[in-house]
Each structure stands twice: as structure tokens, then as C-alpha cells.
């Protein structure tokens, strides 16, 4: 008996793991584990310093590793992980955004008491300890390892060449985010509600993805993206499995980018989550989810593009319209940016609709520009505060341009970038994706996108009007001037927004090189 078992195990050759090529992932993963240990053993006060430094150093090290790997084009770990141009580009992007977000999380001079993360998340809101949890200078330092785990998931998500690995990555990136959403220092109930909503809907969408995965396996007999593509038209099984697989997997992925009609979590979560986490989520998750979408649709379902193109068109149009129109009705600035994020997801889908290399390049470029602008915008939002925390209600921003011209000017610039005014990165990004779409014969989609941009411009401009053309409130919010880290983040994001608007060529070259090397199969 044991001899037979032995014989069987001997037949399995262990996959060769190229540790060097996986180093970015491994570095981040190890840093996350060390972070957990630090939280267990280090002193409370020391953690608040060690954790952000550790996370930041990890991200920088991983970024260097990514840079060193450039040009690699290979399948690793028995075909489970793909390291190619798009993977490395997006991993690098995720790491940069994570680094900026860590700066925001580490900011402890915003609130009178501490940072944006609550001291003790488990205290029931409204109970005796809740005031202490809000005013304590302490924070849940678990936020850092959670963020690093999430980044691990994101980096694996864009690299997975196998639906099963992709699912695992999806969970690794999502679960920490659910927790992080519930860690806001102020408005605890809202934060917890958001976390709950995000978790339930997220779990639901993961189930969709898993179900689709099963159908894909049933159809192709493999979960590898390349093999699914090869199976199209060659296997004898019914195509119904395939279409079910495409549909269900798409639902799971569209949920993550916040595309309509799977967007309903976005405004609640963006509003409820601590602002640094919102920034991280808005920038990082979008990159990761789009990376996965690009890989799945370009490789696994590439042969089917004529079948899913109409669906993509419909989703893109719906997403843009929902995002732009509903944003008009928002009174809370974070919710408004959430709907703006939905609209931007729609614009990104327009780039995909061209189904060409230009689209890949355009989408990757767009993701970078959007991420920088969004992180900077959320950083600025966290600066404008009343005694009750962030001044998130739009009416409180009235006249800010008179009282704090620099902050209001910066925010206006970022809003213009989101609206896509030339000489900002937002315009270059839009140009890149729309050019791909028109070259891919999706001109009607571009016209819809441009009309939606005009609608979207209206609500961005409305904020500028409030800030600059209205009289300031007597009891208006104040701009906190102490937080250096937040200023640095906002500054970097704004500078990137400007530079990528005026001189986008280097990044375009990078995206072009990455895109034209193509996906490894």
C-alpha cells in the first residue's frame, strides 16, 4: 500500500519556481508576514513607526525588483504566473500607488488626536469606549500588514495566468480591503456599514467568478488562460458552457472595477472607508482589476471577441452614463468622486472595446494617470476639515478658494484633470484610450464617452464654482496645515498629473514597450 503511494508521489515532478522572477511578489508577501509579527511583538507606540517604514521599504524593494525584471517574458510556477510587459507595468503601478497610500495612512497630524484609522475597531459605536477609541492617539496598526497583503493580492491578480490562481489572488486582495474599509476613525457606523456591504457584495461577486471558473474548466478541461483560448472551437463540448463562463467571470471582474450594473457598492464604500484607504482602493484596485480583465479577455476569451464586444459596449455605455449622471446628484464629495470613478471605469472599458494593442497601451497609461490624480484628490479632501472630521459635504467647500487659495487651486487642477482638460494627465489618458477605440472601429462608443465627459465636467466644475465663486461660510472648514505626509502625497500626485499632461512621452514609451511585448501565453 505504502509502496503504491510512494510510487504515485514520485511521479509528480514539483514545479520549478523561479524565485528571482517572482521576487517582487515574494518580497511584498514576506513584508506582510513580518508586519503581522511586528504587530504581535512590538510595542504599541513603536508599531506606529515601524509598520509604515517596513511597508514603505517593502514596496520600494519590490519596485526595484520589478524594474530589474523588465524585459522578462515567461510563464512561471508551472504556468500559473505570467511575467510579461503588462504584468510588470501594472505591478510597478500598483506598488507606486501603494507607496503613496502608505504615506496617507501614516499621516497622524490630520486629526486632533491621530490619523484616519481608528484606535480600536472592535468597540461598538455609541458605547462608552467609542469616544476613547476616537480620541485616542493610538491606531489599529494592523492596517499596514492588511494593506501589504492586499497589494500582494493585486500583484498576483495582474500576473495570474490561471483562473484558479486569479481567484486566490482576488480573495487575497479583497479580504484585507473589506477590513480596512471598516477602520475609519470618525463616523464609525457609516464605516462599518460600508465594510459589511462591501464584504457581502464582494463575496457574492467572488462566487460568480468561481462559478464561471468551473464552467470554463468544464468547457476547456483546463483553468489556464492560454488553454481555454486553444479549446475554443476545438473541443467537442457545447458552447453554452463557454458563454456562461465568460458571463460569470465578467460579472466578478466588473464588480471589482465598479462597472455598472455592478457598481452599487462603490459610493457607499468610498464614502465610509477611511480616506487614505479610499485612495488606495480607488487607485490600486482599479489597476489590479483592469489588469485581470485585460488578461482574461485578451487571452482566454480572445477568440471570442466578436461575441463579447457588444456586451462590453453595453457595459461601457451604461457605466459611463450611470457614473456621469448620478454624480450630478451627489452632495458628498467622496460619493461624487466614487461616481466619477465609475465613469472613469467606463472610459477605460472604451479603450478595451477597440480590442487592439493600442487599447492595452491606452488603458495602462490611463490607469497610471487616473491613479495619481485620484490619490492626490483624496489627499486634498482629507486636508479640509471641520471639528467633526473631514468636511465631506459639498456645501462646506463653499468659498474655499478665498480662504485657502492654494489647496482650492490644487483641487481645481485635479478636478480639471479628472474632467480631461488638456495639459493635464487626464486629457492625455482619455486621448490614448479614445484613440485606440476609434482605431478599433468603436467610434460611436467614443462619441458617447465624450458626451459623458461633458456631463461629468459639469459636476467637477460645480465644485470649482463653489470654491471660487461663492462667499465663504462664516463657520467654514479649515485647511489643516500641519500634515507633511499628506501634503507630500498630494504634491506628488499633482505633479504627476501635470507632468503626464505636458510631457507624457516617457511613460507612453514605457506603456508602449510593455503593451507591444504582449501577454505571454
Amino acid at each position, binding site marked *: 500500500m505504502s509502496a503504491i503511494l510512494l510510487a504515485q508521489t514520485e511521479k509528480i515532478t514539483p514545479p520549478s519556481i523561479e524565485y528571482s522572477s517572482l521576487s517582487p511578489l515574494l518580497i511584498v508577501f514576506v513584508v506582510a508576514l513580518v508586519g503581522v509579527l511586528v504587530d504581535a511583538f512590538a510595542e504599541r507606540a513603536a508599531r506606529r513607526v515601524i509598520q509604515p517604514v517596513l511597508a514603505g521599504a517593502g514596496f520600494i524593494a519590490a519596485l526595484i525588483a520589478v524594474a530589474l525584471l523588465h524585459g522578462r517574458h515567461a510563464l512561471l510556477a508551472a504556468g500559473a504566473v505570467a511575467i510579461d510587459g503588462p504584468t510588470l507595468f501594472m505591478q510597478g503601478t500598483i506598488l507606486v500607488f501603494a507607496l503613496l497610500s502608505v504615506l496617507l495612512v501614516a499621516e497622524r497630524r490630520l486629526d486632533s488626536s491621530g490619523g484616519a484609522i481608528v484606535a480600536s475597531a472592535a468597540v461598538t459605536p455609541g458605547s462608552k469606549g467609542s469616544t476613547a477609541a476616537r480620541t485616542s492617539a493610538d491606531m489599529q496598526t494592523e492596517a499596514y500588514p492588511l494593506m501589504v497583503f492586499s497589494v500582494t493580492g493585486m500583484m498576483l491578480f495582474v500576473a495570474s495566468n490561471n483562473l484558479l490562481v486569479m481567484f486566490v489572488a482576488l480573495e487575497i486582495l479583497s479580504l484585507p480591503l473589506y477590513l480596512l474599509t471598516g477602520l475609519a476613525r470618525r463616523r464609525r457606523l457609516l464605516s462599518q456599514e460600508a465594510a459589511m456591504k462591501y464584504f457581502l457584495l464582494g463575496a457574492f461577486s467572488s462566487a460568480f467568478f468561481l462559478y464561471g471558473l468551473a464552467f470554463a474548466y468544464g468547457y476547456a478541461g483546463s483553468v489556464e488562460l492560454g488553454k481555454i483560448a486553444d479549446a475554443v472551437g476545438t473541443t467537442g463540448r457545447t458552447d453554452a458552457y463557454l458563454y456562461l463562463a465568460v458571463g460569470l467571470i465578467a460579472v466578478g471582474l466588473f464588480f471589482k472595477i465598479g462597472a455598472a450594473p455592478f457598481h452599487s457598492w462603490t459610493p457607499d464604500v468610498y464614502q465610509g472607508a477611511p480616506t487614505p484607504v479610499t485612495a488606495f482602493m480607488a487607485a490600486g484596485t482599479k489597476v489590479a482589476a483592469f489588469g485581470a480583465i485585460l488578461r482574461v479577455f485578451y487571452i482566454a476569451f480572445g477568440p471570442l471577441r466578436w461575441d463579447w464586444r457588444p456586451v462590453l459596449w453595453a457595459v461601457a455605455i451604461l457605466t459611463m452614463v450611470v457614473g456621469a449622471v448620478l454624480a450630478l446628484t451627489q452632495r458628498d464629495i467622496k460619493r461624487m468622486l466614487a461616481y466619477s470613478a465609475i465613469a472613469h471605469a467606463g472610459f477605460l472599458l472604451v479603450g478595451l472595446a477597440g480590442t487592439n494593442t493600442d487599447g492595452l497601451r491606452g488603458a495602462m497609461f490611463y490607469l497610471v494617470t487616473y491613479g495619481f490624480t485620484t490619490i492626490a484628490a483624496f489627499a486634498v479632501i482629507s486636508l479640509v476639515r471641520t471639528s467633526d472630521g473631514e468636511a465631506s459635504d459639498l456645501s462646506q467647500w463653499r468659498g474655499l478658494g478665498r480662504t485657502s487659495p492654494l489647496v482650492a487651486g490644487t483641487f481645481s487642477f485635479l478636478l480639471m484633470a479628472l*474632467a480631461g482638460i488638456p495639459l493635464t494627465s487626464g486629457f492625455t489618458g482619455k486621448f490614448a484610450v479614445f484613440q485606440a477605440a476609434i482605431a478599433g472601429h468603436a467610434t460611436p462608443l467614443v462619441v458617447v464617452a465624450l458626451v459623458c465627459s461633458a456631463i461629468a465636467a459639469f459636476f467637477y466644475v*460645480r465644485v470649482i464654482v463653489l470654491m471660487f465663486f461663492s462667499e465663504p461660510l462664516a463657520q467654514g472648514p479649515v485647511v489643516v496645515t500641519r500634515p507633511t505626509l499628506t501634503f507630500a502625497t498630494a504634491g506628488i500626485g499633482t505633479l504627476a498629473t501635470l507632468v503626464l499632461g505636458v510631457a507624457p*512621452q516617457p511613460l*507612453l514609451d514605457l506603456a508602449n514597450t510593455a503593451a507591444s511585448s504582449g501577454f505571454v501565453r
Partner: protein
Amino acid sequence: MNSVPWLTILLVIPALAAVVVAAFPRRLATQAKQLTLAVTLAVLVLAVLATFAYHPNRAGFQFSQHYDWISTFGISYAVGVDGISLVLILLTALLVPVVVLSSWDEFDGDPQDEGPAGGALPEDGGLPAGGGLPESGGGTAVLVATPPVRVEAVAQAVPVPRRSVPVFCALLLVLEAGLVGVFAATDVFLFYVFFEAILIPMYFLIGSFGPAQQQAQRSYAAVKFLIYSLLGGLLMLAAVIGLYVVSAEHLAHGTFDFASLRQLDITPGVQKLLFAGFFIAFAIKAPLFPFHTWLPDAGAQAPVGGAVLLVGLLDKVGTFGLIRYCIPLFPDASDYFAPVVLALAVIGIFYGALLAIGQRDMKRLVSYTSLAHFGFIALGLFAFTSQAGTGAVLYMVNHGLSTGLLFLVVGFLIARRGTADIGAYGGLAKVTPVLAGVMLIAGLSSLALPGTNSFVSEFLVLVGTFTYNKALAIVATTGIVLAAIYVLYLYQRTMTGPITHEANRNLPDLSWREKAVVAPMIALIIGLGVYPKPLLDIIRPSVTATYTDVGRSDPAPPHPVTSQPGGRS
């Protein structure tokens, strides 16, 4: 001489100056204004020098420069001028210093700038009409007295100055740089970038520096202006990208270079779509009927200087775009859509004039007259004769001068009485004879009286149109009658007759500064009316080349119009 990068210099100087001026603190307002004036005058001098370096009869663009910018998309920083863009750059360089000088005191009298010195308001006479207050009394005086009271109340609540002179100057300079860029760009993408970028300073000029009392209308007008323009701009963006994709299909590598795009042989169906994208953007910008509704609001709510630049220059970008981009790039589509454009143009001539007659607000009135004038310009451009085209381009310049002057005069009146309502004036010719005279000249130029600049251009447009389509020309001619009505009716109500309001009795006449502002404008209005040849010599070859390139030669160039053997085209 041609090695001098004139255009880049003209572009960079105001842009750099804007950055410098914007950094000035508020208390250095006077220095900011002085620097701005000096810079804009320097730009004017340079523009004039560039004009002398320009060779009117040489084909193609001159002063060209070309540097790759975003090579992935074939985008370059490429500038160059032909006669058409050169005269518009000249106009820009002229109007901006005029505006700077005319707005010199506009925001000094703003009591909120005084900050804590608010208590000294009644004596120091910050408002021009403030001096006559204690004696006059009566209903209108209450109106005049309102702003300081309101302002004091606000100043106590929030001690923040409302408007900053350095910012105003910086916005003007940015606008000047943007306008030079728009006219000088020979890369379609670069043109688009400037086209959109000039919206932002104008938006802030309207929203932040418009009439202090009408905050709600001001932001409404600013937002309407921006959204209208953005919508047009975004449709144009679709067409711009489309053009790039078409070029990528025809050539080895996609490009935005105007000269290369011109060589493309685009299929008529695609041309129509692209034309529509460009045309709507330009028609909103110009504006042509029925895309004009933002103009009266924006014109009325902008500060006077802003209104001069808006109507005198920004709107020219629309008509300039028609002749620079729409016609040469899409000749077949231009042909196809010409009847539509011509119809809109003629409707605009009448509609604008009729609405102008009925206005009670002077700034809105002038805005509507512009609508009529843009009708004439579009008519001239799409009549496809070199005469009409030359006339139309000259009209762009002349309209900038005459409407600019009209706006300035209106601004002088508003500065004296604080209202744009025509009913508040009457019989001013006795009190302020010089002001009245200037208004008459501006008005007569606006109605194209022979001997003023506009006559030449309007005549050329009509004659040129006549050889193309007699009916259109005849109908359009009657628009001149309406122009006479709105101008003379305005003059009659404000300047002639008895003085109807006591408050008007002591109004001061034009100051030396104001005279210095209007003098060059009047000189040009008369000068170009009598001797338009220098400008025509610059404009005509470029216009002729434009039309010839698209296979449009004049119907019967060497013959007088009467010898044509009947029959409309």
C-alpha cells in the same frame, strides 16, 4: 530675419509673465498691473516687428518651428503663420494691452480690497459714483448706495478680499499666450490643446471678476460658457482623433501635422462626420445661430475687459477654425454643408440684430450685435470666393476693433453709474461729450458706415457673396438696416435728449487713461476704413491659397460682377 522664433517668443513671454504676476501678493497690485502692461506692450511691439518680417506673397506657413512632442501619437509642437493667423495675432497683441489699461482701476475701487479700512469708505470715494451721494438722494442713489453697505456686512463676516488684481492680470496674460498659441499652431492637436486651454482663464474671468452684485448669474454664465465650449470641444476631440486614425490608415504613421493632413484624400462620408465634429465646436465658439445662447450671458457677466477679449478674440477662434481647418481639411464636406452654414449665417444676421434691438442691458446688446456680425463672417467664409473670404477675415479683425471699442465705451458708462441698464442713462452727450463721441464712432463702425473699417469688410463679403449667390447677398444686405437700428437706437436712448436721471448730471467725462485706451482703436477704425490695403495685402494671398487648394477658384475673377451671364450657382 526668419530664423527668429517669433511665434514661440510671442507665446512664451506672456506665459512666463503670467506665472510671475500670479506670484505677486495682493498689495503689489499696482506693480502687477504695470508689469502686465509692459509685457503686453512688448508683445505688441514684437508682433508688429514680426509682421514686418512676414512675406505676404510667399506660399505656406512662415516663422515655422517643429519639435516632436508626443511622438507615439505623431504630435509635435509646430507653429507657423499665414496671413490669416498673422492678422489675428496682431489683433490679440493689440487688444490685450488695451484691456489691461481699460481695466486699470476696475478692481481698485473694490472696497473689499481695502480690508480693515472699511470704515473709511464713505469719505474716500472708492466707488466712482460715491462722490455725488450725499447731495443727490432719490431712488437711483439708493441703488448706488447699496453695494458698499452690503459689502461692509460681508467684510465683517469674512475678512477676505474678494478679488485679486495680480490674479486678474495673470489670467489676462495666460489668455494672451493661449490665443497666440491657437492662432499659431500648425499641429491640429496643439491647436486643440490651446483651444481648450483658453477656456479656463476666461471661465475664471467671468466667474470671479464679473459684476460684484450678481453672484448667481455670474457663476451661471461662467458655467454655461464652460460647459457649452467643453461639449463642442469634446465633439471636436472625437473628430481630431478620427482625423488621426484616418491619417494612420493613409500614411505610414499617424500624424497631426496640418500640412500632411491637408494632403489626405479622405472619403466624402468620413469627411462629413469629421467636418461635423469640427464645425459644431467652431459654431459654438464663434458662435453661430443656434449655438449662441451662452454668449449674451457670458458677455453680460464678464468684466468689461473680459468681454472685450471674449467677443473680440475668443470668438474669432471659431471663425478662424472654420477657414483654417474645416474648409481646407474637408473640402467635399464643406461643399456639402455650405447651404446649411449659409442659412445659419443669414438667420444669425437677422436674429442677432433683432434681439439686439430689443435689449435693455448694454452688454447683452453688444453681445447680440456680435451674433449678427459672426453671421456675416460665416457667410463670407462659405461663399467660397476669395473676395468674400478676404472680406470675412478682415471682418474678424474689424469686428474685434469696433465691438471691442463698443464694449469699452459701455464699460466706461458702467464704471460711472454701476449699471448696464440702458434706462439708467439718457442725454449723456451734454454731460460727457467725448464719451458720447467715442460711442458714436464705435457704433458707426459697428453698423459699417463707409469710411470706417467695417464698411470695407462688409462690402467685400457682400460683393463676394453676390458672385456666389445673389439671393443670399441681397437678403444679407438688408441686415445692415437692422444694424443701423440697433446702433442708433442705443445711441439715442443713452446719449441724446434731455438728461433723465439726476445722478447722471455730474458724471465725469473720459479721463486721460480712458482716452489713451480708445485713441489707438479709433485711429485704427478710421485708418483701416480709409486705407485697408496693408491688411488686405497680408490676408488676400493666404485666403486665395486656401480656396485654390481645395479647388475653389472665383467664379469669374477678371470680370466685373455684372458681366456674369445670369444664373445662380
